[in-house]
């Protein structure tokens, strides 16, 4: 058996599905001198992989997760460890049927073959299922099961065969040494390993390992209960591991999966049962494996009855006994997404954790690519470990959020649904005043952000049907027509928008200009007092972000970016400051609050508060400077994300409430209203065709595809420049378009409004495919109240990206006609931008 080497190019801790897949892909990408260790014995070291139910349903509402799953399935198939069984999600209620129709949308958008089936069809596929218990089902033939332990062995062996990998099992990590902010050494029970790249792929134990280095992997071990019942004669007579489709009984949050002569019943219905990584028993003390915790039968009893209702003849068969029952541990995260990437705390220390069997090999490949050249093929921005704010890494937050989300594993989750636990967290200085205005708060990066204000209810009368009311409960959940009323009032008069959730950081020092020039696509070598909106690219020319940069001094640039992505952006800049320390990134998020003032009366209102010249000539678009407002010094920046005349006003956070009040006082005689993020993030933005990172923009999209290319490219070098220059002369493979919905009437006569994620099809409902091989889907959907239309953004095949082209959108399994209104970044509203430049 191998002994622990004294040094390595990279140490991968963990030999579950993720660690095994990672060492394989690292070796494949040319890494050598890889050392993989695990405290357990091989091939099953005792983590969650060892007791996983090992089935894969490919359809998920998230594109990122679906792509990782599809890649994983390919890899499992190539290794010969995938058995296709088909899978059915069954509905016991009409509400669930609607959710299954929504899953059809995702299946179509991601190009996965699925279909709705009747109870009789379900029974044909699964003869022992009681059809009277269900209303219908969603059948995906490509569902299957894998042998994840065998896959792990194959991948390890491949890496060893190439000479790149040394595997040392039964060695436990006792410490991770960090020097000058970087990982240097892994201490183990078998000796120390010097390494400046270390990956924690330790599943439920990951937080404990990260803590050894002073880093955080914010996940919690949580129980998923599973029992195995058999031998069932109906299954025993069939050859092989699985011959019937897997059934997900969605309304009881349970699944039934054949495993040889047994039926495994798993549940996400029980109370959340959370553990701490430190309290997981050792291998020696565990009865089964450390992650197969003692079964708590009381928690499972209700599920037994529900499973029995669905399959009485099978589960009640003579001789069928509960032969195995565990509280299996798996990893849950506060937002449900995996935790991947280099830790923001420690250079060279990576996380590959909170990953399910269905994503394991795909994650292994993506993280290996990321470690190799920073460029995973699949966009991983929702899984980036850098996304967490400090409060999101605390035990309390993790436990409250995962407890809240656990029963939503099979739940019907509305795309706008908000978390309710561990709130409020971060409060804007004008929070109390917003509460008094009846703000409906949504959460972003922990900030409480007003989405709309009940105080604007009065506007509904003023605007009548122009607010595009929605009849259907689902379409109007987490939404209010007040959003559209606020929008119209802003366009008519003025709106005051709290933007405290912005992440703000300065890049300062003699090397600051070089840093921002290198990171940003747009020309940042501009006069002091200019504001620059810029994409940020990776080396491949995919989006890493889009943000604004204010040049405040020759050696000071202020970066303002969205809260949700702020931490990742900060790391992106901090990773790219010169090594000589000539530039620093200073986080000012908690130092400044930002209030937006926009609308045709914005200048009048601000004029009431300042003696400074804010005329168009005196304060041009795209400039910023300090102005005196009352006794406050306010950094005013004349830009707009809603397409109106106005300013972002930045003040020290302790003066935010004062400025907020003064704007309202000054604004009242001009009819200004408080305006929520419903307008700022959606309606105002999409009328102007503005793209949003995480929706239209991600690392798989380019500036050209997004229709955002400018006539010139700056001469200075920047990350992604070469790729971008190439993209500019090539034909785009897909083009971001704005579409308008022409008729909302469903078969039932009720008008329906898409919410995002729906597939775009040809006029006759045929499938479309862009030159990447992707199917078009709605990246953002929302009202455009000034146009009286519902607007959709979607990347279309270039040949379909024609003004006036008539297509359809599929929503809840019905087709609605849409028309291409813009095939580039030209906005549907005020296309010549007269309002902004007023």
């Amino acid at each position, binding site marked *: 058996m191998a002994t622990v080497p004294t040094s390595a190019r990279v140490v991968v801790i963990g030999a579950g599905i993720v660690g095994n897949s990672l060492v394989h892909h690292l070796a494949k990408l040319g890494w050598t001198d890889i050392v993989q260790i695990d405290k357990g014995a091989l091939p099953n070291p005792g983590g969650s992989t060892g007791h996983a139910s090992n089935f894969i349903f490919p359809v998920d509402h998230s594109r990122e997760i679906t792509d990782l799953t599809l890649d994983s399935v390919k890899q499992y198939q190539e290794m010969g460890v995938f058995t296709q069984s088909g899978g059915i999600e069954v509905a016991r209620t009409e509400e669930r049927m609607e959710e299954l129709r929504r899953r059809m949308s995702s299946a179509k958008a991601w190009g996965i073959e699925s279909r709705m089936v009747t109870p009789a069809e379900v029974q044909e596929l699964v003869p022992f299922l009681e059809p009277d218990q269900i209303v219908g089902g969603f059948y995906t033939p490509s569902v299957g099961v894998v042998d994840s332990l065998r896959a792990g062995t194959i991948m390890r062996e491949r890496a060893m065969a190439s000479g790149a990998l040394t595997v040392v099992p039964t060695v436990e990590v006792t410490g991770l040494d960090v020097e000058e902010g970087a990982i240097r050494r892994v201490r183990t029970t078998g000796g120390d390993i010097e390494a400046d790249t270390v990956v924690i792929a330790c599943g439920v134990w990951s937080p404990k390992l990260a803590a050894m280095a002073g880093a955080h992997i914010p996940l919690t071990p949580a129980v998923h209960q599973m029992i195995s*019942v058999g031998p069932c004669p109906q299954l025993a007579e069939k050859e092989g591991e699985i011959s019937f489709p897997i059934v997900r009984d969605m309304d009881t949050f349970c699944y039934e999966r054949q495993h040889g002569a047994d039926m495994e019943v798993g549940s996400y219905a029980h109370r959340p049962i959370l553990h701490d990584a430190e*309290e*997981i*028993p*050792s291998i*020696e*003390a*565990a*009865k089964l494996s450390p992650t197969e*915790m*003692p*079964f708590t*039968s*009381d928690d499972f*009893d209700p599920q*037994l*009855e529900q*499973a*029995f209702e669905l399959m009485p003849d099978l*589960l*009640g068969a003579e001789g*069928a*006994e*509960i*032969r195995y029952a565990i509280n299996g541990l798996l990893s849950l995260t506060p937002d449900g997404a995996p935790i991947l990437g280099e830790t923001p705390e420690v250079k060279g220390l990576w996380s590959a954790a909170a990953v399910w069997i269905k994503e394991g090999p795909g994650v292994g490949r993506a993280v290996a690519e990321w470690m190799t050249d920073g460029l995973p093929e699949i966009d991983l921005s929702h899984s980036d470990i850098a996304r967490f704010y400090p409060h999101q890494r605390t035990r309390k937050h993790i436990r409250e959020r995962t407890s809240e989300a656990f029963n939503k594993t099979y739940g019907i989750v509305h795309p706008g649904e908000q978390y309710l636990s561990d709130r409020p967290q971060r409060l804007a200085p004008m929070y109390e005043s917003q509460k008094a205005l009846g703000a409906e708060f949504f959460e972003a990066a922990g900030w409480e952000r007003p989405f709309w204000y009940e105080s604007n209810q009065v506007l509904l009368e003023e605007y009548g049907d122009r607010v595009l009311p929605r009849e259907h409960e689902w379409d109007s959940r987490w939404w209010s027509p007040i959003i559209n009323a606020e929008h119209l009032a802003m366009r008519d008069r003025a709106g005051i928008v709290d933007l405290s959730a912005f992440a703000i950081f300065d890049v300062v020092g003699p090397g600051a200009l070089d840093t921002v020039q290198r990171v940003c696509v747009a020309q940042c070598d501009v006069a002091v007092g200019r504001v620059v909106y810029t994409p940020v690219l990776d080396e491949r020319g995919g989006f890493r972000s889009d943000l604004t940069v204010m040049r405040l001094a020759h050696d000071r640039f202020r970066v303002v970016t969205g809260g949700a992505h702020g931490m990742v952006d900060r790391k992106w800049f901090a990773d790219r400051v010169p090594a000589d320390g000539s530039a620093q990134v200073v986080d000012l998020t908690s130092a400044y609050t930002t209030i937006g003032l926009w609308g045709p009366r914005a200048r009048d209102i601000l004029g009431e508060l300042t003696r400074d010249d804010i005329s168009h000539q005196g304060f041009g678009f795209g400039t910023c400077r300090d102005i005196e407002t009352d006794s406050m010094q306010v950094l005013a920046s004349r830009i707009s994300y809603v397409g109106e005349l106005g300013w972002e006003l930045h003040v020290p956070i302790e003066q935010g409430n004062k400025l907020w009040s003064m704007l309202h006082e000054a604004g009242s005689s001009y009819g200004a209203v408080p305006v929520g993020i419903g307008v700022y993030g959606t309606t105002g933005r999409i009328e102007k065709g503005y793209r949003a990172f995480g929706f239209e923009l991600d690392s798989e999209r380019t500036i050209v595809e997004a229709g955002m290319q400018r006539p010139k490219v700056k001469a200075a070098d920047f990350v992604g420049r070469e790729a971008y220059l190439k993209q500019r002369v090539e034909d785009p493979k897909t083009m971001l378009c704005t579409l308008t919905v022409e008729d909302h009437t469903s078969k039932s006569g009720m008008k329906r409004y898409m919410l995002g994620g729906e597939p775009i099809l040809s006029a006759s409902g045929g499938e479309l495919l862009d030159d990447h091989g992707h199917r078009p889907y709605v990246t953002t959907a929302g009202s455009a109240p000034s146009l009286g239309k519902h607007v959709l953004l979607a990347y279309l095949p270039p040949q379909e990206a024609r003004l006036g082209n008539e297509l359809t959108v599929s929503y809840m399994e019905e087709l609605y006609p849409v028309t291409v209104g813009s095939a580039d970044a030209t906005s549907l509203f005020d296309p010549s931008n007269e309002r902004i430049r007023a």
Partner: protein
Amino acid sequence: MTNVLVCIKRVPDLGGEISLTADGRSVDDSGLGHTISAHEEAAVELAITVAKDTGGEATVLTLGSDDAVEQLRNALALGCTAAIRIDADASAQGPADVARAIADVVREREAGGTTYDLVLLGSDASDTGDFQVGIRLAYALDRPVVTAVSTVSVQDGTVVARGAAPDGGSEVYELPMPAVVTVMEGGVEPRYPSIPGRMKAKKVAIEEAAPGFGAAGSGRLRLRLPEPAPSQVTILGEGPQAAAAVVDLFEKLGVTR
């Protein structure tokens, strides 16, 4: 028709490594599940079988806190039809206390018209290993007792108990009823619960009893962990050459035939 009473005790479900509580007086069961001793599992299996074979009923009894209801329900799920919990802190009771408390319940039930013709126990509990309760119970009830047998059946009103003899042969005892028998694992394969069994068990009301005396305790001062046994590793071979040895071993263990 034989009415069987089977007595069980909730104990920690141990892995390979055992740790003690800080005061050294008991096994640390934090993070552990709970079960009944393997000998008691065999006793429950025999109780259910005897009851079924004779058209009688199997009642399960434990002395313990509310947590021990879990073990009663598990026995009900297997086929016991009634359950009694003597409400007491098991760790504060010595074997004499437990025997006395069970005897009180048996007598009380008898006075109420329910006779337990056969009382089955495990030969000892895995956490204390006293080997006393069965014998003390028989003494208290003035019944015949045999201990440490592997199988029990009732034939023509007589209890037939079989166990291993010291010389490798077997011993067979016949006892008149009512009788007490303590069981060791190995003679029967305990069943697992079925789903319908589990659902039925949920609906059974657990009868409660209270001990009518103060416990004397066990007199135990503290536990001590023995030195771990040296682990012995035999390498059967490497690569395909090891296959024959592995097959031999599997056959010896009864994994394959």
